[in-house]
């Protein structure tokens, strides 16, 4: 550990340290936050491996390893301190893997990991400076470059380390594009809750994700201001459409439990770097994410909207921060 920006002076044969207050610190560090978020992703990661087998494990390892290596290589090249131990690159790599279909080739996961860190983070100056969620940048690069590979979904074959099923299934949201009736007839909401549905490695079980989310709430790494309004907006708006025309639109619970909504709302929209800092701003950000998600899911050709919704609102974050600047203590409003 280095002694920060402290000044040492020698007097009375004793070196005393002179520094600015405060002289005590809370125990929480950035490194701790990052690794605890990784830990919170544990249940859904393990369940993903259980459901999709060895292939899922190798995809997760590849993506995480390339993310860490890319971060280290760029930091070394830029003559910065190599700081992969802070856990942020590992978290990005893991989040990306959890957002990949379980059958993608390993080279794709590798490119994704490198893109997420290189293009999503280091190009802006590294930790704390990236405007967009790096894992989602990686995912979108892959989605645009290899759309077929990124939308091929092996069927879930639960069982400890079984090989991945070559039969290609459909995701619930993919079915939705064929009509509400088709989708609801083939997907049980209970399966969606437990995780027995097609989808990305880390998004299939609402239960596993919620266990991690509760841990994050408990550790105060996330607050309700982003995930709850995000999810509430999706449920509310999709619910209005369902009430108006239940034949055409699907039940709001379907939207809640399928696709990447829960993963996105609790683990990606809440990324501290790319979301607003004020509580009011966070709510505005979350409602925006919810509206864009529903708009994409209901009215566009693409089945899933969470990633794009978060990325778009990431872009709006500086503006939201500016709008929602806090009233200072004792600040007298001009109109008062």
């Amino acid at each position, binding site marked *: 550990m280095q002694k920060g920006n402290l000044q040492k002076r020698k007097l009375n044969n004793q070196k005393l340290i002179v520094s600015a207050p405060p002289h005590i610190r809370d125990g929480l560090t*950035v490194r701790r936050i990052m690794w605890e978020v990784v830990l919170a992703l544990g249940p859904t990661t393990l369940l993903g491996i259980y459901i999709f087998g060895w292939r899922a494990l190798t995809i997760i390892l590849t993506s995480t390893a390339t993310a860490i290596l890319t971060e280290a290589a760029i930091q070394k090249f830029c003559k910065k301190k190599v700081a992969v131990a802070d856990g942020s690159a590992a978290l990005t790599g893991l989040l990306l893997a959890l957002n990949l279909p379980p059958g993608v080739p390993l080279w794709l996961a590798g490119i994704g990991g490198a893109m997420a860190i290189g293009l999503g983070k280091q190009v802006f100056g590294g930790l*704390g400076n990236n405007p967009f969620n790096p894992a989602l940048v990686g995912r979108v690069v892959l989605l645009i470059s290899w759309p077929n590979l990124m939308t091929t979904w092996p069927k879930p074959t639960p069982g400890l380390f079984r090989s991945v099923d070559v039969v290609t299934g459909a995701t619930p949201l993919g079915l939705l594009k064929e009509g509400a009736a088709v989708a609801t007839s083939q997907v049980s909401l209970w399966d969606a809750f437990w995780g027995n549905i097609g989808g990305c490695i880390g998004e299939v079980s609402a239960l596993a994700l919620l266990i991690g989310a509760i841990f994050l709430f408990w550790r105060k790494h996330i607050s309700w201001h982003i995930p709850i309004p995000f999810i509430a907006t999706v449920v509310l708006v999709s619910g209005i459409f369902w009430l108006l025309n239940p034949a055409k639109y699907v039940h709001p619970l379907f939207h809640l439990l399928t696709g990447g909504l829960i993963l996105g709302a609790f683990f990606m929209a809440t990324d501290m*770097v790319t979301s607003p*800092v004020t509580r009011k701003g966070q709510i505005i950000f979350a409602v925006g994410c919810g509206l864009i998600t529903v708009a994409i899911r209901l009215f566009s050709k693409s089945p899933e909207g969470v990633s794009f919704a978060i990325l778009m609102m990431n872009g709006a974050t500086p503006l939201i921060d500016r709008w929602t600047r806090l009233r200072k203590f004792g600040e007298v409003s001009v109109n008062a």
Partner: protein
Amino acid sequence: MKILTFPGGVHPPTSKEATRDKKIEPAKIPERVIIPLLQHTGAPGEALVSKGDRVTVGQKIGEAKAFVSAPVHATISGEVIEIKPLPYPLGLNTDSIVIQSDGKDEWLEVEGTKDWKALSPDKIRETIREAGIVGLGGAAFPTHVKLSPPEGKKIDAYILNGAECEPYLTCDYRLMVERPKEILEGFRILMAALSVKNGYIGIEDNKREAISAMGRELNGEPDIQMKVLKTKYPQGGEKQLIKAILRKEVPSGGLPFDVGVLVSNVGTAFSCWEAVVSGKPLVERVITVTGPGVKEPKNLRVRIGTRVSDLIEACGGFNGKPGKIIMGGPMMGLTQFTDEVPVIKGTSGILVQTDVLWDEEIACIRCGKCIQSCPLYLMPTMISLYSKRGRLEEAKDYGALDCIECGACGYTCPARIPLVQWIKYAKRELAKKKAQ
């Protein structure tokens, strides 16, 4: 009783166990004292004595003509051996008077009055000014100036600050437990100086003995109300105290009298009692000498001007190798580069830390913890960012000048950014710019 508080703030460990139950002891009268002519917020004084003069305890030895200033007094009897700039706790060197003790501890003849109710407000102010009393909570603002609000500002509430929210410090707590009667009488004298009818005492809820001692002494008198406050830092900040007790916000850039309130520390009230009732000027105060780097932590009644080294000795010496010597508490105290600095009127404690290991500062990850902890609802990370980049106008726009430097943001920052330091820098540069 309802427990009051303010929005924001942090919960550092209170670390008061080492000295909480230790009675205030008088420290040995030192061989030598160093008395800086500037110990308060305001204009520095000029020496009234010269090298070689003999002085007695309580004799006025420094004074300024300016209104916002306070005289200083000799705190031991003996000979003035030097008048020159010397290290002092609030920064680099400042003009100081050095007195060598004659070992006699002779006091100037002084006289006070038990019948202070017969004194006019002006006479009370004058007595307090002559006694050199300043706010003992830390800011050291001259008390007689506080008692002279501008024309047209009506003061209708006076708060006695017994919060003592800084970790480690117990001097105010001990004073409240041991001398509640004198503190209350001192407070009533302060209230009388402005004919204030509503008095409040604010004490954090972890100081039960102080609450009961003061409560017993109050005995239901209607002029002063006891208010129990949540233990949270910085509860003892005057703006936070006013917010918690009276639900009023001091306007941005304003002072408590703008909302008709004054706040004084319990130590200040005690010194006012001494000044008015026994005629004793501010020559000693209670401080807490504590921390892992001190062998026997204590609450000591010390003469102003006593060097830190003497007090460390009085507490059994250093425990291990000292890392930081901090004047004040760990949240706002200032680190010293030598133990030859003297205790001044605003010194509430000496904290010695041993293991000083710091994580390196890394980039802000915008977690927002500084924002949620700021009791002034500022955005410390934004101010510090602008300050770092020299964009002072933006730093000001984000409230740099409203910052009370409590350090709550720096305490909570997981990236270990020295937020307060950057904000202080912006404040200083803005002040320089304004002066030009």
